[in-house]
Structure formats: C-alpha cells, structure tokens
C-alpha cells in the first residue's frame, strides 16, 4: 500500500516543488503592485492577539530592530550558521579518497547488519 502512496506522493512532490518555485517569484510582483508588505505571520498574529485579548507586545530586552542593525545581525547570523552547517556537513559526508568512509567520521564497525558499533 505504501509503495503506491509513495509513488503518488513523489509525483505530487514534483508538482508542488515546481509550483512553489514558480509561485514565489511570480507572487512578488503582483504582491508589490497591490502594496502588500510581505508582513511576517508573527506580526499578523501579534496584531490579532492585541485585538482579541488586549495583549500588548513589548520591545525586546536588546532592541536590535533599529535601522540596519537587524539586517547586519541577520547577515552575520546567516553566515555563521552557514559555516557551521557546511563544516559539519563536510565532516559527515565527505569521503576519503577511494573509500566509503567519511574523512572525519569513519563507518565504525558497521560491516554487518545488527552488529554493535
């Protein structure tokens, strides 16, 4: 049963991926034309909560949302996270020349199914 479902889902996945790739860039222009701001869902919910329950958001302890400061922090944070992902990805998936083993994380004791590492 799952094989058939998987087959159908694979097709659906391809269609959805293509739809997303087309829809996101296509959506930017109509969105801009209608003056939409691509507001974050967090902000939408915050406004709804304020309307319904009277909850009022406070500025964060360290308010970095000032000028280009937040943009700078996002750039630095994204770069640092990217480096950490890249280095660890390389350690896990880069293989030694002519070997199945990763350069840093060897395939320890897994020659047989069920064998203890």
């Amino acid at each position, binding site marked *: 049963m799952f094989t058939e479902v998987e087959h159908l889902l694979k097709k659906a*996945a391809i269609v959805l991926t293509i739809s997303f790739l087309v829809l*996101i860039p296509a959506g930017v222009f109509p969105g801009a034309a209608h003056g939409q701001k691509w507001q974050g869902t967090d902000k939408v919910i915050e406004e709804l909560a304020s309307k319904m329950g009277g909850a009022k958001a406070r500025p964060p302890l360290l308010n970095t*949302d000032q000028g280009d400061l937040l943009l700078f922090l996002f750039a630095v944070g994204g770069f640092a996270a990217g480096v950490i992902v890249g280095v660890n990805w390389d350690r*896990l998936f880069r293989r030694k020349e002519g070997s*199945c083993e990763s350069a840093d994380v060897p395939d320890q004791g897994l020659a047989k199914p069920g064998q203890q590492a």
Partner: protein
Amino acid sequence: MHITEGMLPVKWAVTWYGVSALCVAKGLRDLNIKVKTVPAIKQMLGLLGAAVFIISLLPIPVPIAGTSAHPTGTPLAAILVGPFLSSILATVALLLQALFFAHGGLTTLGANVLSEGIVGSLVGYLVFRGLRRLGAGLGLAAGIAALLGNLSVYMATATELALALHGNQPVWSITWKFMLAFLPAQGPLAVLEALVTGGIIRYINIQRPDILRHLGVVNEPSPSSDVNFRGDNNVYRG
C-alpha cells in the same frame, strides 16, 4: 512562530517555562549519554543546531497569503537525534533569536520552546516512528512527520495564546481563530518543509546509511542504499 516579548501574562509565561525546563532537562541527560555512545553525534548536533537556527529564522514569502512565514526544522532534528535533544537545539536557537534578532522574547521563551522545540519535535518523532512501524518508506515517513510536526507547532502556539487571552470566550474558539490566521501562510510552508525533510533523510540514507543506523533512525540496512554507499553489493557479506 515566535510569540513576541510581553504577549503572555506572567502566570502563563512561568507555566510554559516550567514545562519546557522538564523536557530540556531530559534532553541534557540524553545528550550526556549519546555523546559517549553514538559516533558522529557531535557533528550531527552541530549541523542540526545551526540548521534549526537558520530554518526557524528564514522568512519565506507565501504568495497565496501575501505574508511571510518560516518553517520550523525541529521535526527533522527530532527524527535524526530524538525529540529531547531536538528540544535543546531549539532552545539554543530560540534564545539567540530572542536576544539578538528581535524574534520572540525572554519572557515568552518557555512558550516558544514548548511549541517549536518540544511539541514540534515530539509530533515529528512519533509520527515518523509510527509510520515506519506501519512499513512506510523513509522519505514518506519523514515527509509526513515534518508536515504534521510543522502544523502541530502552530496548533500549540495558537493554544498557548488562546489560553492566555481567551477572556470570557471558549478557549477552543480562540484557538481556532489563531489557527485560521496561521493556516494560509503556514499550510504551504508545511508542505515545503515536508518535501525538504523527506529529501534530506533520503539523501542521508543514500550517502551515509551507517549514520542513520548509529542514530537509531533505521535498524536494517536497505539494499539500495548499500549499493550507492559502496558502489557494489558486497558490504554486508562479511
């Protein structure tokens, strides 16, 4: 979803901190054991920690809704390292986001850890395990786990907000109102997260199936992955 600083009354903020602290403590205990016993766990935790941080901070525009929203990443982490270790990764990511990225807040950290780090991880992990027991393939099980894990994060956030802000109205009706506000943006992103998570788990199974076995994600070697891993069929002949 990051509940903004100051949105929750003190009573609820403290309650969610308490619940989250219990799960994170269990995660720290698991961490101590796994660091000593599971090869490659440090690299995997480093990779997943940074991935959860960046995925849960990435605003993706959703044209259907006209808003931006972010995936969660915690179901993927939970599938690979377990729900409690995943909750530690989410706690670190959410703390950094609250301190330096104006996302979430310190008073709402407990609530955000509970919804994204714990509920998302537990639902993702349990759905994955359940589907694997029923015989689902790795990619399919991971994809559905990520889809439901993602939606459960928003269901939990909606419930947290509704419990704190429902006033005289029934909690379920307020929860439903918040869910309706989430769904237009979060529904498509849940599908996207499902596709990405399913793809990543399949990729790891092809590249390093031994890592999935070390981590306890799979028990038996799959013949197709062995062929891809070694380039022949002789891996398990001893």
